[in-house]
């Protein structure tokens, strides 16, 4: 019975990983760029919400009304100032420049806020600890359920947006061939700036959920990047529903690992990532096969 609970908690934790991986996976599928400042930007959003809540008594959910558009603007600026120039330099430069950017963001946050760990939990009332009891052993946290629901809505929404809107089609076409879309009147620069803005909006939301469910400090971004990357790779990089699947696999592995030994949480997480990587590299894209299988079964 204890394992059933571990698995349920792991699945719910996976909702958070899917949320943080969403923006990373989206940017990879659209622009073929892995943004190494991804985690640091999520922490930046978390601090923005913290400042709003702490100094101006703005509830984190209300704060998102300000922070999400602000992060979207940051995203558009990031695309124009850094990513666009980097992408021209080949595969190497985006990795180097976004890693440099993450160091700058982390240390500026440290300079501003110091080493104290913070959390948004005190500002969301009983949501941070309330839960529904299913049995005596199993309880589902309301915040965890909300995180999962948000992840599903966000991933589903982006998928629908990409498949069924004019703008979504423009983004996909630009991802395929940025030079050719110019011929049919699409401004590839603007489309990429928009795509990065969308990615950063999701980063703001994931930063909010990170800060509500746990504590964070200026250097917490690196670990969030790693989790996001692991979820995206396990699910098959570039696929949005795969990302949800990947997040859940990662969450369940960590949750089960933690029940075995104290270090098991991280060991099992990184371990499952390497196993998934091994399977993908030697036996093809596991997530893709699973999706095909599911489609055939349906």
């Amino acid at each position, binding site marked *: 019975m204890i394992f059933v609970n571990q698995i349920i908690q792991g699945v719910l934790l996976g909702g958070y990983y899917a949320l943080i991986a969403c923006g990373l996976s989206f940017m*990879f599928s659209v622009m*073929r*760029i*892995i943004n*190494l400042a991804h985690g640091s930007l999520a922490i930046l959003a978390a601090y923005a919400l913290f400042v709003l809540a702490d100094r101006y008594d703005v509830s984190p959910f209300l704060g998102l009304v300000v922070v999400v558009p602000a992060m979207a603007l940051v995203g558009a600026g990031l695309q124009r100032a*850094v990513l666009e*120039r*980097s992408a021209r*330099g080949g*595969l*190497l*430069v*985006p*990795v*180097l*420049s976004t*890693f*440099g*950017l*993450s*160091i*700058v963001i*982390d*240390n*500026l946050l*440290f*300079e501003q806020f110091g080493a104290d760990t913070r959390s948004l939990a005190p500002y969301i009332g009983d949501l941070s600890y309330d839960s529904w009891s299913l049995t005596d052993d199993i309880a589902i946290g309301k915040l965890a359920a909300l995180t999962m629901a948000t992840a599903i809505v966000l991933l589903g929404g982006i998928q629908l947006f990409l498949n069924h809107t004019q703008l979504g089609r423009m983004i996909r076409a630009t991802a395929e061939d940025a030079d050719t879309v110019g011929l049919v009147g699409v401004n590839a620069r603007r489309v990429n700036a928009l795509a990065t803005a969308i990615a950063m909006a999701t980063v703001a939301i994931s930063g909010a959920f990170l800060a509500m469910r746990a504590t964070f400090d200026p250097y917490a971004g*690196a670990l969030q*990047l*790693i989790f996001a*990357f*692991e979820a995206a*790779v396990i699910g098959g*990089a570039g696929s949005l529903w795969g990302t949800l699947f990947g997040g859940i696999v990662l969450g369940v592995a960590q949750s089960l690992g933690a029940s075995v030994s104290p*270090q098991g949480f*991280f*060991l099992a997480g*990184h*371990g499952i*990532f*390497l196993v998934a*990587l*091994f399977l993908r*590299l030697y036996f093809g894209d596991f997530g893709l096969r699973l999706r095909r299988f599911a489609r055939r079964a349906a």
Partner: protein
Amino acid sequence: MSAHANLVVERWTRESRVALAVAALAAVLLALGPLWLGANSVDRLTTLFIYVILAVMWNALVGYCGLVSIGQQAFFGLGAYFAVRLADSGVSVYPSLFLAAFIVGALSLPLSALMLRLKGGEFAIGMWVVSELCHLLVNLDTLINGETGTSLIALNAYPTDLRRALTYWCAFAAMAGLLAVVFFLLRGPTGSAIQAIRDNEQAAESIGVRVTRAKRTVFVLAAFGAALAGALWVATAVTFQPKTYFSPQWTAYMIFMALVGGLGTFEGAILGAVVFFAIEAWFGAAGVWYLVGLGAAALVFALALPRGIWGWVEDKTALRLLPVGYRVHFLAERNAAPTAPSEKNAT
């Protein structure tokens, strides 16, 4: 090239022969360092040698092979760990530094089979995950006492002055040896192969470059070098705290040194290490702002000057001090002012 009588392929130039002579002289003077330098200078130079190793190894991996890794701290940390482990189990402390590097180099071989199948950003962060995993695994060893860490107590057997000199000589020998290995590797067929891979992997493969073997050679060499640097670092710092050694900060330093000095230029990595060493000495006390500056410099150099200071100098002056490439000249031009000769990094 013999089909065109007026073309000459040049590998050594007059400047580079002079540079090599100067480098050899400097090497002799540095080798005798502990005999004529003060204790403080010896310590500082030991640190510089380790930085040079890190910069040159990362540059070989990234600048020449096109493999950006954010996880080289895995090998740095493992090198330090195995040095501590071996010394604890009775191996003499200085041989154990080198032995540790060989162990890590051997371990990186199976790892390369998995990781080298990844490309670009996936390889970069994948290596970071590997380093996190290594950190956790090292913490499982009870000798290390978790994050509290341990010390290389075997060093206490040596009097301070002797220990300082021995560590210096080990670091110097490691640096000189690795520089020579990288220099001749890059000048040889493997060097041509890996640069062809960096520039276009498919094209390289199509003309018969054995892509996997060339990449694996550099990957293992870079792992070995980083491990040796880690082992030497624990010999200078004495304490081993896993968190400090497995920190991505080491990779940040390597990126800074290679980018600022000159990615993909042999001299640039050495220059970058010297620049970093000087900046750390002057601004290291500035703490957070120093780190902000390092990150910002990496960002700016990646965007504006991706071949770094030395790459810029090479482009402007055609100066090659320690040439690893080939240069093709028209005979008539050869004695004229060296303005923008056509440079071929041979394939």
